[in-house]
């Protein structure tokens, strides 16, 4: 493997992204139209069922649904390349506008969730590795196994039951109080969804950190560092944690779509106005244009984060460079 010019390296990655997104859009376009269901219902509501054949034909022509699928696709692609993704059948406004309204909510939930998981997993994993085999370690591992078995929707239900219905401490749904709003209000609405998002994923990554750290602790350099007189804390935090960090970073990059995908269900249970509830609606009610843009967005996030993970593991970790052939390291 030669060390390539960065332009070629990143250019190749971008081309790969473009091809993947193209194939994805083609696939989603066809699947969505093959799936039975009436898009007119989502545009006209119940009226669509009472339409005469003539009215239906007119309506379909107006929405461009009467033509063969491949012509519809080329037309959609041509407009999309100019930044026009069409209007949503249900909301009758530009799909980019609808998504732009909802996206900040999902980003807030997913972003804080990601941060909590990232930092929490490091802390819990290091704590467990530090206390390997102790009561604390065993308790944390057991609790983690149990919590990771609880489906997210049921955890949400139980939390709503306890904190919103019985104790009345926290709101049970939405992202903010209607009419009100402000930072504190949003934060209060975020607590329960955030807890569920974090609890669902945290243990998996914490367990991973713990096991990787324990593997590191069994290697020879730890023995050397210890015999040099370094303190336990320094060995664990400065040496071991540092050497597993690149792997963890690329793992977390891959996990972005998982965490975002997890928020889909959480959003639905908490009726949180975000991308998740929107995707669910658009797929169920054949809101084609909205569905396309949402799929492309989430697909790009997945592909981008996979690439990011690859780049991290190929470029950031100095050990990976050492493993390349000698002539490469001389130039690099």
């Amino acid at each position: 493997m030669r060390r390539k010019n960065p332009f070629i390296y990143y250019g190749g990655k971008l081309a790969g992204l473009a091809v993947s997104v193209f194939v994805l859009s083609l696939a989603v376009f066809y699947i969505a139209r093959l799936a039975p269901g009436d898009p007119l219902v989502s545009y006209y509501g119940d009226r669509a069922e009472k339409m005469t054949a003539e009215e239906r034909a007119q309506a379909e022509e107006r929405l461009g649904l009467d033509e063969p699928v491949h012509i519809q696709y080329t037309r959609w692609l041509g407009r999309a390349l100019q930044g026009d993704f069409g209007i949503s059948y249900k909301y009758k406004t530009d799909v980019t506008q609808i998504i732009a309204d909802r996206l900040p909510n999902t980003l807030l939930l997913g972003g804080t969730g990601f941060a909590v998981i990232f930092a929490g997993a490091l802390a819990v994993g290091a704590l467990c590795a530090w206390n390997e085999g102790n009561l604390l370690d065993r308790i944390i591992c057991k609790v983690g196994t149990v919590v990771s078995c609880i489906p997210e929707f049921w955890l949400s239900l139980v939390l709503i039951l306890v904190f919103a219905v019985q104790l009345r401490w926290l709101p049970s749904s939405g992202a903010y109080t209607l009419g009100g709003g402000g930072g504190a209000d949003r934060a209060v609405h975020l607590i329960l969804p955030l807890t569920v998002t974090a609890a669902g994923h945290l243990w998996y990554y914490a367990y991973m950190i713990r096991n990787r750290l324990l593997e590191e602790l069994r290697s020879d350099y730890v023995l050397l560092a210890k015999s040099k007189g370094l303190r336990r804390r320094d060995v664990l935090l400065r040496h071991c944690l540092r050497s597993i960090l690149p792997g963890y970073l690329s793992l977390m990059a891959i996990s972005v779509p998982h965490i975002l995908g997890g928020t889909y269900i959480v959003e639905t249970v908490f009726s949180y106005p975000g991308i998740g509830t929107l995707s669910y609606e658009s797929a169920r009610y054949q809101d084609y244009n909205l569905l396309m843009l949402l799929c492309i967005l989430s697909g790009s996030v997945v592909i981008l984060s996979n690439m990011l993970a690859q780049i991290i593991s190929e470029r950031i970790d100095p050990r990976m460079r050492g493993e390349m052939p000698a002539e490469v390291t001389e130039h690099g």
Partner: protein
Amino acid sequence: MDERFVLIGARTPVPPPLPAPKWYDGKPVCSMAVLAFIMLGCLCCEVFLPKDPAYMDLLHAAVPPGSEFWFGSDTMGRDIFSMIWYGGRASLLIGFLSAAISAVLAVLFGAVSGLAPKWLDGLVMRLTEIFLSIPSLLLIVFLQAILGRASVWSLSLVIGITGWTAIAKVVRSEVRQLRNSEYVLASRCMGGGFFHILRKHLAPNFFSSIMFMVVMNVRSAIAAESTLSFMGIGLPLEVISWGGMLSLSEKALLSGAWWIILIPGVFLVVTLLCVTNIGSWLRGEGEQRGNNL
């Protein structure tokens, strides 16, 4: 030992022999027993069910647990105790069936991809990535819409189709390591076909490494069924399953009927926990070496 003949000056008394390892050492006996109990109860539930699980006794809707309804009744007046055992059948069946479907798909895809020339392998892997990049919830909604009305079989198929990629990757990398080994080559030279080689030479090698993933797929399939039925895109309401029972929880939340939410959920979580424990036992906990710290 006779006390008159105590050895004096013996520095290292002989340690008592370690008890011989019992057959259950290291095995998740408790999880296996609980899972077996739940499965047996669901299979033979006709024998002991106190009430018809589908009968809606509207006069006794949302009754708290008591002597008549042991686990209470739901908002449509059905007996939760009967529903749990009866509904477990659908949930468990979907779990095992879809894990089996995804395992078959994964082995086929992984083996083809592992044995194929490089360009085909690259193509299959790219397509897998694109497939993975559609959020699985949307994919399930699509597939369900194509297959039409949901039943236990169609739902298993849908969940199975969305869950094979991780196993396929493992199978592929194992097959790539094995495909140049002498015995595979020999079998090929003697005219062994694809399925023959897969069954006789490849599968025994990757069987143990995918076994725990398949068991973990049982778990995620049961969880997926419950999530989908809860959201109303899984099984229809009249088919009783654990997830379907929880789909009534919106009403239950408003009236504070905790038993409708908690009791089926506890059964679900306990089952998932048992399956997880068995799965991680299958993975094997690796070798135990001393800590250098």
